[in-house]
């Protein structure tokens, strides 16, 4: 989809400073991941990140009234079965808003951006919207691992605004291969494994890889499968690879990160990632990278940025941004 007249105005983050070392099973390498304190609940971190975003944008909580707040919902909430967006807005003191939560595997910030662009196109009275991704994996993962990814805690938010001239979206493309719907999920709490005492006490209420064969297939092919999505995003933005000055991206594992850079021949100096080292923050990762993009004052206005992320859930997306 080609997009016009929508820019990234600000970003906010709340990443705990406490870290813990996680040993990645595939390679045995150790990764430092951020670990939330007792008070840093998912919604508290999202609230703090949103307050930081508002401060940076020079806006107040009142400026979010009747605006959009979309949440990438793969992570657990303060309590289960709550609507994260509404809970965060309540903490912020925001009254009426447009807010919902959705899942698309564990890597959906560009899907949220696509949906937000659509909503703003359909409702001209709406000026802005936030994409949020709170993450907390201490209790709802297996040892802070998701396949080969080491999971960190934190929250990241990005504000998109109608008519904002800087970091303007040019295109967004999303794609799903439904065969991989069964790679990651929480088996407890649905129809097949009801949330009863036994599976909960046994530690089965966790988000983890279930279809290992599909996971391994994806790990080998996901970067290649991303290529046509990127090509379409570039085409719809009416630019080519040679026009891309910077790539803002996120990858679930260091191996996928390297595969991505190698596959598309992107030098390190042209890559902006989450800055989390080898740790992964699921949907928050690319939002953190957007925040780092906004901090880059050396990029000339008008330069072209490709945004994408490499997850492990059968969904791909890419966007083109003009600084």
């Amino acid at each position, binding site marked *: 989809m080609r997009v016009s007249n929508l820019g990234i105005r600000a970003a906010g983050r709340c990443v705990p400073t406490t870290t813990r070392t996680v040993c990645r099973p595939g390679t045995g390498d150790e990764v430092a991941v951020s670990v939330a304190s007792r008070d840093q609940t998912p919604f508290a971190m999202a609230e703090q990140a949103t307050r930081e975003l508002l401060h940076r944008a020079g806006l107040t909580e009142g400026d979010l009234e009747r605006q959009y707040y979309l949440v990438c919902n793969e992570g657990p909430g303060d309590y289960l079965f709550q609507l994260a967006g509404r809970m965060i807005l309540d903490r912020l003191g925001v009254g009426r808003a447009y807010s919902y939560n959705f899942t698309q595997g564990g890597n959906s910030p560009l*899907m949220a951006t696509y949906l937000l662009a659509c909503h703003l196109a359909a409702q001209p009275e709406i000026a802005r919207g936030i994409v949020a991704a709170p993450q907390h994996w201490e209790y709802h993962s297996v040892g802070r691992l998701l396949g080969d990814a080491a999971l960190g805690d934190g929250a990241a938010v990005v504000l998109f605004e109608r008519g904002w001239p800087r970091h303007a979206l040019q295109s967004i493309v999303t794609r799903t291969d439904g065969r991989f719907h069964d790679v990651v999920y929480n088996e407890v709490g649905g129809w097949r494994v009801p949330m009863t005492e036994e599976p909960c006490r046994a530690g089965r209420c966790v988000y983890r890889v279930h279809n290992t064969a599909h996971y391994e297939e994806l790990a080998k092919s996901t970067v290649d499968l991303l290529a046509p999505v990127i090509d379409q995003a570039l085409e719809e933005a009416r630019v080519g690879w040679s026009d891309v000055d910077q790539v803002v991206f996120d990858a679930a594992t260091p191996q996928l990160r390297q595969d991505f850079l190698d596959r598309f021949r992107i030098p390190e100096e042209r890559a902006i990632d989450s800055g989390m080292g080898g740790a992964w923050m699921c949907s928050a990762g690319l939002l953190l990278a957007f925040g780092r993009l906004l901090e880059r004052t050396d990029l000339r206005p008008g330069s072209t940025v490709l945004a994408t992320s490499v997850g492990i859930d059968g969904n791909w997306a890419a966007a083109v941004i003009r600084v």
Partner: protein
Amino acid sequence: MREKTAKESPLVSADLAETAEISGIAGIAGIGVALAESRVDPWKEIAPAAGMKESLRDYLGCYSVPIANGQESPSHFALTAALRALEEAGICPSEVDVVISNNITSDYLDWQMSGYLASELGIEDVTTFDIYAGCNSAGIAYQAAMAIMKADPSVGTILIALSEHLGGGTFPQFIGDGGCAWVLRRGHADLTLVDFSNINAEMPRLGLLPEGGVINPFTPESRFDGEWQDNVEFNMDAYKQELKPIFVPMCASPFLEVCEKAGIAPDEVDRIFLVHQQKEFNRKLIAHLGVDESKTPLHYIHDMGHISGFDVFICLKRAMDEGLVVKDDLVGLVVMGLGELHAFLIRY
């Protein structure tokens, strides 16, 4: 078979500078319903265990609900409903560009039922996502789908396929199991959206599942009797003091708002369908809206109870099949769930 629009015209635009007009872009080309095959008399099978008084019989107004057997999963209902909706629309699954599902009471938690449906239906070139919500997922999904239709001309067909599997519950009505799907088609002239209203604001906190989240995670010592639905702590005092006094006007507010936006009086709708709460509550709501009671088939509650927010699409389909909704009728849909309210005006 129609080729996907994206392949014909990849350079499309969501221009946020232009004045948007969401009405008339796309219509509902097919609605599919899949309810559980088995039926129970809730006053024999559900009410006694729930301690419900027989005196509530006529207030609830429900005498039969569809309850799933051991093999009927949420995804079974969604897939069956999707196939029926596509068949009614005369659309090949491969023409679908976007699949939207829900996943708060799905086969698993946080899985991609939308991706499962795309896979089972053989839809390869597609985008899918799942709304994480309760009854309000019907309103959110429809609103999101129409926004996609407005903004992304490469999308020609959207399949919304939702299911709910909370059968045997008793609030706000006897709850049954089933799914409902509808197909939105660009340019389709029937059942087009005229306007919508969505009210999402701070609400009294009524229900909380104390264990299982980040604040109080499950441990090997967790005590958890029954399923999660049985362990939600419901704040009856807050319900009685804070919500009940305002519940009728609150549920009425999105419909009154959308009528005002559309410049019509509420009673100008030809038919209106409400999410199934208690039959007598829905009667009060209709009266509060100022709509003649004959314009809503309250008796649909008798053999359906409440399934989910998509009750309104099940009722719309049934009313069309029975000839209660005819061409050019203006139809109102009122959806409420988990503290969120939606109203839609559509033209058949």
